[in-house]
């Protein structure tokens, strides 16, 4: 686990309101598993105060470069867009439990900014189909094309791929040995249900508001069900963000 200032290589808008930021860190790139995240301090002062968790989109161990893809939603991500090449970013990571990489035929199913954490995973899977949903403009589609057997697209307004939900792109998931998903809760809930119905192993990456990012403060509670059926609050930052679909509750 690393904590340091990393030099930024680039920080550019790659779709409307969505940016890709690449920074140098041999250690993080070496250690990163798909689905893990970094905890980023934005700005030097007290505003904003907390770090922001951002998933690792790509980890290039050869070059020692990490790519983050982030959506501008509030003050922190807004200020993040102002960083330029050569500036340094204060980063902790890689953090959390990533996606287990499975040998068989897999699918990644993403929605919105939730597509980003699936790219590193897709690139490591032996056989992978990708179902990607966007609000409007797509991003990183070529990269998914490069490492997936098949890529199917959907968008809310029809700009990218089929108009509608990404979950409308398939009727069954039976053909897969494992399905990985990240995106809006209703989408993930639907994927979880379909996997359950089709008897497919499913992994889900959740988002919770975080404090420490390392498991010390317990604010990132995510409801999970133990094997005996008992319910608990797990830590999204340490026990997750990736959970086995059977374990994670996804209730509101």
């Amino acid at each position, binding site marked *: *686990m690393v*904590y340091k200032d990393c030099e930024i290589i680039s920080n550019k808008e790659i779709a409307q309101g969505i940016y890709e930021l690449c920074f140098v860190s041999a250690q993080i790139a070496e250690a990163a598993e798909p689905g893990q995240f970094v905890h980023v*301090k934005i700005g030097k002062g*007290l*505003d*904003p*105060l*907390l*770090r922001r968790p951002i998933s690792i989109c790509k980890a290039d161990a050869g070059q020692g470069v990490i790519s983050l893809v982030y959506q501008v939603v509030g003050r922190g991500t807004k200020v993040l867009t102002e960083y330029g090449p050569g500036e340094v970013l204060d980063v*902790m990571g890689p953090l959390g439990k990533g996606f287990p990489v499975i040998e068989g035929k897999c699918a990644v199913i993403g929605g919105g900014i939730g597509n980003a954490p699936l790219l590193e995973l897709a690139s490591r899977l032996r056989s992978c189909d990708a179902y990607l949903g966007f609000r409007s403009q797509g991003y990183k589609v070529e990269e998914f094309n490069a490492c997936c057997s098949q890529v199917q697209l959907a968008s809310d307004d029809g700009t990218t791929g089929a108009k509608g939900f990404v979950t409308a792109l398939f009727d069954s998931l039976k053909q897969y040995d494992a399905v990985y998903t990240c995106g809006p809760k209703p989408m993930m809930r639907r994927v979880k249900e379909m996997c359950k119905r089709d008897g497919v192993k499913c992994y889900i990456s959740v988002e*919770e*508001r*975080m*404090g*420490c*990012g*390392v*498991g*010390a*403060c*317990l*604010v*990132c*509670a*995510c*409801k999970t069900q133990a094997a005996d059926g008992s*319910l*608990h*609050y797990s830590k999204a930052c*340490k026990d997750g963000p990736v959970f086995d679909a059977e374990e994670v509750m996804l209730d509101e």
Partner: protein
Amino acid sequence: MSNMAVDIAGIRMKNPVMTASGTYGFGREYGEYFDLSLLGGIVVKGLTLKPREGNKPPRIAETPAGILNSVGLQNPGVEYFLENELPFLRKHDVAVIANIAGNTEEEYCAMTEKLGASVDGIELNISCPNVKEGGVAFGTRPESVYRITQRVKACCKVPLIVKLSPNVTDIREIALSAEEGGADALSLINTLLGMAIDIRTRRPILSNIVGGLSGPAVKPVAVRMVWQVAQAVKIPIIGMGGITTWEDAVEFILAGADAVSVGTANFGNPFAPVEIAGGLKAYLEANEIGAIGDIKGKVMI
């Protein structure tokens, strides 16, 4: 070489920098970043008699220079702590303080008895705003502070620290009640009760509606309370509330703290307590101050 060691009512620490309850788990996580033996003390996550799952998420909201939290004392219970967490902490040369919270005086006493002399001190959390059953009430009325302190003290085998709530009209009165009840030391401040609303959803950001405010935003309130309490009581004080830099720590010590705790600042900088201890030492040496205790309460009025 300036002397950084402090003795808080019998709890000996190599330096006056502790980590605040609830922000540091049981030490394991930050222990991956550095040797915990560099700290003066670790106050563990608030313990209850039985395991607790805590409140529904979201449990955190960012506010200007602060955070609101409503964890609601999620913890594995005092027995699990003794069996599974304390042994790890004990491998380090650091004072371990157990922070305990209960719904009744009996619960507090039962926990104190279970803890026995296994920890270096017990911190009585009678001020957590996130427990509805009575946690707050204990800490805001002088009579109940006096009584619970007295009862727990009677069965406490280690120094007893009472942690004060800032959500009161007169902090001196509460501090004096704890001192009269037999507290060996005081720690303050716990969090200020606050609320934040998401104007898009029109819902409170915290699912518990209200939560506890901590971080730099509360520092002026905390410094004021430490100063007021230091003038009222004779027992040692552990100061906290927004401490982020060694300069903040000096401010609290000048106001009257014998030691300090670092909470929210850990989230931004895992090395914060170590850097603060280093900065304090450099400050003492640059100013040729023989011992950290020499500046306690030395604000010039």
